[in-house]
Structure formats: C-alpha cells, structure tokens
C-alpha cells in the first residue's frame, strides 16, 4: 500500500481538440475542421462498438447509416436489454417549450454548476446545444413521449432544476429511448451494415503500434475466445458502479471493457466520482443482490422526514407532526426536498448516522405522500406515481398509500470513466469512449435526466462527427490478423487468466469476493470518505486480491456457457479498479459533488470544495497491477460559469 499511495505526478493531460473561441461556436468549428471520410470509402472502414445502451446503440446505428461497417457487441442476449433501459425519470433538453426562461446557456450553466465545477466547459456546452436535436431525433423514431391534450410534448421539472425541461415517457423514459436506438440499430443489422454479436463479452483491447486495432471477446454461449479487428474501437460499456456490489446497476453491468482498456494505456479519470442516488428502496437483508431505484420525480410531491428523537421506533403514523424532522425542508428552505442528489443523499446519511434512521437497521428515511394525497387526492397521486408505488409495494410488501415509503441512498451512476478529449477519444489513439464509460460531462455530480441526454448526444451526434477525423487521418492501416504477435500475446493473456480462474479450485465463490470488496468500498469509499478510511481500504484491497487468487472457485470449463466464470472474471477487474477509486478519493482531499471528504467541510457541515488545489480532472495512467499509477492532471478552465460554492439553502 505504501508504494501504491505514493503515486508520481506526470505531465498534465491536455485536450487539444476543443477549438478556441466563443464556447457557443466551438462545436461548429470542430465539425468544420474535422476531416471527413469520402462516403465511398466508408464501407472499407470497420468500427467496433462495445455495448448497445443509449450511447452504443445510437452510435452503432448512426455510424452504419453513414456507411461504416460496424461490428457491435453486447453481453446480453439482445441489444435491447442494455441497462439504459432502466432509467426512469426523463431526458433534459433546452427546448424552452414552456417559455419558462430555459435556454442552451441555462442548461449549460446548470450542468456545470450541478457538476460542482469539475467538468469541461466546451463539452458541456456542446451537450446543451445537442440536447434539442436529440428530442427531434427520438420523436422521429416514434418514441412515445408524454404529450399534452393539444398533441404537443409535455415536460416536467426534475431533480433540483427550476425550469421544466425534462421530457419523459411515464416512468420508463430510458426504456423508450433505448428501444428507439435499438430499433434504429436493428434496421442497420437487417441492412447488413452492423454485424451484431450478442452474448459476447469484450475481455481485452488490442493495441498495435500505439493504436487501438481490435478487441478480444468471448462468446458466452460456446466459450470461444476470439479476436475482432477494426480501424477504431468505441467503448460504450457503461459505468462501473457494480464495484460496490449493491447498486442500481444491472447484475451483469461491469467494468471489464474500460478497465482492460485502461490497462492497455487509456487514462482513467476521476474514478472516485460516484453518484449516490437518494431515493432507492433500502436493503432488506444479506441476501440482497441489487438495489432498486425509485424515480427522483417522487421528491416533487413526497416529503422526506425522520423522527426528531433518536431510536424512535414507533410506526410512522404514530409519530406526531411536531416530533418529525423534515430535515431537507429545514436545512435547505428554498429547494427543500428538491436539492440535488448528492446533497439529498448526504443529508440522509447524516440523519441515519445520528441514529434517527427508520426501518431495519436504521438505514432509511421516510418519503411521505400523506400531504400529497390530501392535497391532490389519491387519484392524482395514482396517475402520477402509480407504477412506482406498485413497484415499491411489490418489493417491500408495504402500501405506500397507507404508510410512508422508506428510502435510502444507493450507488447509481459513475461520473468517472476513461479520460476523453473533446472528440471523445481516449489517450489511446483510435479508442473512443462514450456515454457513462467516459469521464463525461457531469463533473463531480450528475443532475437528474442528464445521463440519457449525454448517452444519446455522444452516440447520435458527437462520436459520429468526430470519429471521421480520426479515420480520415489514419486511412490505410496495415492489415492485421490473429497471427500478429501482439494479437497472439493478448489472446494468450486472456486465455491464461480464464484458465487460472478455473484452475484455482478454492473454496470461495466469485460472489463472496464481490460482496466483500463491495462492502469495503461502500464503507470507506461511499457517501463520505476520510483519509484514514481510504488508507484502510487501500491496505485491505490487495489482501482481498491475493486471497481471491488463492481461494476462488469456478466450476465447469471455459468452453461452455459458464456464468460463474463470467462473474469471476469481472470480479478480477473490480478488485483492481476498487484500488484506483480509493487512491483517487484519497488524493482528492476536498469535498466535491458526489465525493464528500469529511476533512473538507465548512463549519456548518457543508461540502467545502477547494478549487485552487483540485480544480482539475485527475487522469490516472496504469503501470501494473498493484503498482502506483501516474497522475496526469487536466486543468479545468472556467471562462463562462465561474466557480462558486454551491448553495441550495
């Protein structure tokens, strides 16, 4: 540990792609300056896309429409099942249909501020600009957004924003947007422009002469490990929240694609920036395999409270009004229950730490609709939130119309990811990262309804424009094949890793290790972090890793459908990524967005950001398993939105 935490600082990493000039003109300028590939030549270029969520699905479809030959992968049995499908709330766009003062600039401003000034202005402004085109695109695809009686699109206010810019399709916006992208992708698959490999998982990246040239992937049905080659590789494999074991991610969401790319040279930026979502259903016991999110929209009408007294175990309806603490309304009177996610989550943790939490283990707070039902009537509440209430009741067996819901924060999204420049290219030429897989436009905290916006912006509009430039500048790659020595080496490494997992034949399951590292991360690298806690975790992780390779048990063989092997191989990467996350958290001795460092708070207990010391994105370079990575800083310059301490009071 002592050596790992003594990381060296290398040369700063610089985004050379964002043009100079007024922020509103940069995207136009970049698109103009980017070289194009002659339409007739495009079919000669192969692009690999890993993942079929909002970012990957939209990118695959769009690249294929442009004429490229796309080879796409997903571990699920169908591209339609990527976890974007579970996003509930909505998608932001600066359409200003409500005439309520919204604009591209306001969305840009809100996102930079909401991200606690840890995102790149050029990227965020582009995101805000593109947001309007996304809605047009999705409507044209037949995405059934909610509409008003006049037939026009409905919008709502969402997650601590004071304008109604969130478009939605009941509580299933992610599903509908994903199906739109999936259908566009399906059209290209049928046309032969996309070669789709479902149930195939990327296990490594092939880098030849410093450029990304392909991937190694395993067919999850036959177990066959194969190589696939391309002129560029796009990772759209999502976030790494599953490091925590319990999260709102899908069970099989994993970090392998980005972690393997990191090991092959792509810098990993801000790995500690994790979003803890305030409104999840609390866990019920040790058997819990995942957590379920309740849409943040519930906070529009529900009131959050805990008993004033510690250890008050009376049922909610027996606690009189004056013995309840509506703590968000008390601490943040102007935003009340609608404060951003990081603030709501931390406040919940604080009251629970004080011993005022409710439900099993005191790990929960009430989200109460009694007032809303009285004010709006049960019918109206049902119409608005019925499906969420049903879901809650199904999981908890409690009727939220009668007793307040119990909620608790849970890991939901990772703002960190592979470092990318304005073109979304990583530090490995020819390797691009889009959607949640990159370190993204959300800085240290993501606002509600922004993930869908970013995934689709990257996939439909940004990547298809910027990848041209790379492909045009690297037109004649030497042909490579499986016989290439580099390819042979990567293939052999992958095979060895899988064989070793099968050979150990120990006495612990992959899940038990995953659970162990997850609990450690939640405790020391979760909602609030301390220097000593993180050091403890950094000491423990290599031990778990060592134990893993001694005691892991994976039944069966590699040449068959083997879900234990898949799982074990993902845990290998979690055990390395967890270490980097802790180091990043340790080094960032400030409180910032989703990263709350207990040593860095204001006298009244609010997060204290330290712009002078930490006003950068931290991009880490891999040097070897367990070896100290090299820190490269990208200085963040704020020309338009000047950093202020966020205040939601």
């Amino acid at each position, binding site marked *: 540990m002592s050596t790992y935490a003594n990381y060296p600082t290398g040369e700063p990493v610089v985004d050379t792609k964002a043009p100079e000039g007024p922020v509103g003109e940069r995207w136009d300028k970049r698109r103009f300056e980017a070289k194009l590939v002659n339409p007739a030549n495009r079919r000669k270029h192969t692009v690999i896309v890993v993942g079929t969520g909002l970012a990957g699905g939209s990118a695959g479809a769009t690249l294929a429409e442009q004429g490229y030959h796309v080879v796409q992968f997903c571990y699920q049995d169908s591209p339609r099942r990527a976890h974007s499908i579970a996003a509930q709330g909505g998608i932001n766009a600066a359409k200003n249909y409500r005439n309520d003062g919204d604009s591209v600039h306001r969305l840009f401003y809100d996102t930079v501020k909401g991200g606690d000034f840890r995102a790149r202005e050029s990227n965020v402004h582009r995101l805000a600009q593109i947001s309007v085109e996304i809605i047009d695109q999705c409507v*044209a695809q037949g995405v059934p957004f909610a509409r008003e009686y006049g037939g026009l699109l409905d919008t709502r206010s969402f997650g601590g924003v004071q304008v109604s810019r969130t478009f939605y399709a009941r509580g299933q916006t992610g599903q509908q947007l994903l199906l739109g992208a999936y259908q566009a992708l399906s059209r290209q698959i049928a046309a032969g422009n996309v070669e789709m490999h479902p149930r195939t998982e990327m296990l490594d990246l092939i880098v030849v002469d410093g450029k990304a040239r392909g991937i190694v992937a395993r067919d999850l049905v036959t177990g066959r490990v194969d190589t696939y080659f391309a002129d560029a590789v796009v990772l759209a494999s999502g976030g790494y929240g599953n490091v925590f074991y319990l999260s709102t991610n899908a069970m099989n969401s994993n970090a392998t694609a980005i972690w393997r790319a990191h090991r092959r040279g792509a810098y990993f930026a801000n790995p500690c920036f994790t979003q803890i979502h305030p409104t999840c259903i609390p866990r019920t016991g040790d058997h819990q395999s995942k957590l379920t999110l309740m849409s943040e929209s519930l906070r529009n009408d529900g009131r959050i409270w805990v008993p004033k007294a510690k250890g008050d175990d009376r049922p909610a309806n027996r606690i009189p009004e004056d013995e309840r603490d509506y703590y968000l309304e008390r601490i943040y009177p102007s935003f009340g229950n609608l404060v951003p996610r990081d603030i709501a989550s931390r406040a919940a943790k604080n009251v629970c730490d004080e011993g005022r939490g409710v439900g099993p283990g005191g790990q929960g707070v009430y989200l109460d609709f009694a007032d809303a039902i009285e004010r709006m009537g049960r019918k109206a509440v049902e119409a608005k939130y019925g499906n969420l209430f049903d879901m809650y009741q199904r999981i908890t067996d409690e009727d939220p119309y009668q007793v307040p819901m119990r909620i608790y924060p849970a890991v939901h999204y990772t703002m960190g990811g592979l470092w990318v420049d304005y073109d979304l290219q990583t530090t490995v030429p020819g390797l691009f990262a889009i959607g949640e897989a990159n370190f993204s436009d959300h800085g240290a905290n993501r606002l509600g309804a922004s993930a869908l916006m970013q995934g689709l912006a990257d996939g439909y509009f940004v990547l298809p424009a910027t990848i041209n430039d790379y492909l045009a500048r690297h037109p004649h790659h030497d042909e490579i094949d499986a016989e290439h020595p580099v390819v042979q080496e990567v293939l052999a490494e992958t095979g060895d890793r899988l064989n070793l997992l099968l050979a150990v034949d120990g006495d612990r399951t992959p899940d038990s290790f995953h659970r162990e590292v997850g609990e450690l991360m939640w405790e020391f690298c979760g909602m609030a972090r301390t220097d000593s806690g993180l050091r403890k975790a950094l000491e423990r992780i290599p031990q778990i890793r060592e134990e893993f390779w001694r005691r892991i048990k994976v039944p069966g063989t590699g040449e068959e459908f083997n879900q234990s092997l898949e799982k074990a191989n993902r845990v290998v990467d979690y055990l390395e990524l967890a270490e980097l996350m802790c180091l990043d958290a340790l080094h960032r001795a400030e409180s910032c967005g989703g990263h709350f460092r207990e040593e860095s708070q204001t006298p009244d207990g609010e997060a204290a950001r330290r712009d002078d010391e930490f006003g950068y994105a931290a991009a880490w370079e891999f040097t070897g398993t367990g070896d100290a990575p090299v820190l490269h800083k990208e200085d963040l310059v704020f020309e338009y939105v000047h950093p202020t301490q966020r205040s939601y009071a």
Partner: protein
Amino acid sequence: MKLTLRVWRQKNADAEGAMSTYQVDRISSDMSFLEMLDTLNEELILNGEDPVAFDHDCREGICGACSLVINGDAHGPERTTTCQLHMRSFEDGDTIDIEPWRASAFPVIKDLVVDRSAFDRIIQAGGYVTAPTGAAPEAHATPVPKPDADFAFEHAECIGCGACVAACPNGAAMLFTSAKVNHLNVLPQGAPERETRVLDMVGQMDAEGFGGCTLAGECATACPKGIPLVSITGMNKEWLRATRKAGKR
C-alpha cells in the same frame, strides 16, 4: 422457509435435459425469486456442482432478460417479471417447479436459458421507423393526439421477455409482434412504413417457426406489462389493410 425445487437441467443445446431436485433452506420471504436461486447456486458452487444457469440482468422488471416458467406459469404466480416475484408468494415447504420458456423458436441454450434472438429478427424485419440520425424535423412539427400517444406508449411498454410465447399453447409470438406494430403504426411518424412494417414483421414471425394465434388469451394473462389481447386484433386489422393495399398496387 424451506423449499423443494425441481429445476430443468440441460447441459447444452444438444444435450438431453431432465428435472433435478434440490432442497433450499433459510429462505427469507423478502427475497426475490432470483435471490433464492442465487442462494441455491452459491451452495452448488461450493459443492463443486454446476450452478443453475438462468438469464437475468436489471432485476427491476424492465430489461426482459429473466424468463422462468414457475409451476407452469411464465414468470410465476404473480403478474410481474420473475425478478420482481418475491418468496412471500410461496409457503414454507412448497415444491416449486422451474422450467425454461418452451417453444421451438426459443431453443434451450443451457438449463433455464433460451435463445430469444428470433424476437430481434422480427424487429429487424420492420419494427422501426426509418429516421436516420440528423434527418429529424422539429419535434413539435407533428402534434400527436394524446390518446394516440398513450396508445402507442401502452404497446411500447413490451420488454421482449417472451412470456407470451412461453405461455401460448401454440408458441405464438403474436402479442410481441402486435405490440410493436401497434406502437409504431398508430403514430404519424410510423405511417409511411405502416403497411410494409406489419407484412414484413408477420412474415418474419412465421419464418421463425412461431405458432399461430388461436386467441386462447394465455399470452395477455402472462404478460408482465399488461399488453392486452386486443393488441393482436389491432395487428390483424393492420395486416388485412396492408394486404388489401398491396393487392391494389
């Protein structure tokens, strides 16, 4: 809770399968059905046995991956997905039969995992609107009456899990196909491809070897998203309309 599980075990697509019996103990009624299977699998792994393979991912009832026939019902006794089924729906001491989706268009890959790629090919045949990226008009250029938008949404809710096929005595994919046809055909954006869409999708559905509809209604009963049986009627109407129009051309 203590339970007896009878689970379909099949090594791979070509192998013969059979039901195997397992006992599980210390099952909490708060567990989801899949968490109960996780518990079984943890034990199997430690005993050096092959754990039971089953598809699952989001465990929130939306991705459509999970696909178990539990005591003869697709997704089990409640109207929801397998992952949202909780053990409180069972009694201590119960014997539970767990089988894969059964249809010749959904061949078993291993144990409880089946190949549902036929659904993808039905969508590929026409379950989309041709709207290349960048070609979209302003979103408000075409208002959509709210009832139409709601109708489209109700059908678009389909998660493609295949419970309709699993429940249908004929292994028919009519409900799945009709959900997409109805979703897109009611919208103005879907209108230009209205006829080709339904003809091609139904054609693909037949080519995949799904059975035909005898309106037994089992599909709609099993559908975790409540796609109604009348959705099939709507598709039949669209199909007849398209056939008439194609005949005139």
